């Protein structure tokens, strides 16, 4: 699964904006229609898409779409834990 393509698609759908408005340098806070509720919705959709769980700090520390993408990539690279 293409991480960037999937993330951009989710952000685009949730905010009702064009994918062409997104790139790795764009700050979340600068996006049209962004709100805390939309941020949470984006996080939940991304978690579901990649079967990962993002830390709470992501909401506050990650500023750009590129940073968010890196965090998703990092979590995807983790070796699954087996009990």
């Amino acid at each position, binding site marked *: 699964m293409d991480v960037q393509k999937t993330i951009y698609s989710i952000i685009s759908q949730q905010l009702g904006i064009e994918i062409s408005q997104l790139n790795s340098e764009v700050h979340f806070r600068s996006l049209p229609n962004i709100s805390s*509720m*939309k941020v*949470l919705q984006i996080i*939940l959709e991304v978690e579901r898409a990649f079967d990962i*769980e993002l830390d*709470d700090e992501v909401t506050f520390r990650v500023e750009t779409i590129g940073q968010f993408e890196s965090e998703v990539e990092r979590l995807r690279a983790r070796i699954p834990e087996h009990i």
Partner: protein
Amino acid sequence: MSNPKNAVDINCFGCAPKNPIGLKLEFEAVHRQCSSRFSLGPDYESYPGVIHGGIVATILDETLAQAVYHHGNGSAFTVGLRVRYGHPMETNIPHVAIGEIIRADSTLIRASGRIQRDTGELIAAAVGSFYLVSAKGMEAMRSISLERCRDHLHEPNGVKMRGK
């Protein structure tokens, strides 16, 4: 399967109709989802006009647990709950809580849920793990609980007085 929390002697803070300080949430199950519509008053506030975050977590816990019951998995206890808040829940505003099962085995059930305004905006979301309890185990707990209730019957407000 009937919901064990609907039993007449259940005093669940989340869903029991007779608990005077409870949330009295009513649930319905449709397909894979379980949902409840509600609006909470100032008794459950933290800041003025805002429902307490712990109450929000309680609603999500109850909603996920109801999803477990409604999917025929019997009684269960919460063993893990992660809540995330997107926006304050406002007092006296209609909301809906929705829960669904993510995966289940013979011991643990994983469920997810959310609370949103009646108009659709997301307020909070949660994922939780629930440990299944056998009918025998539930009956044992009920016996212990009833025994404790009987011990407290002679005390004011049902509260056991220590050191008497």
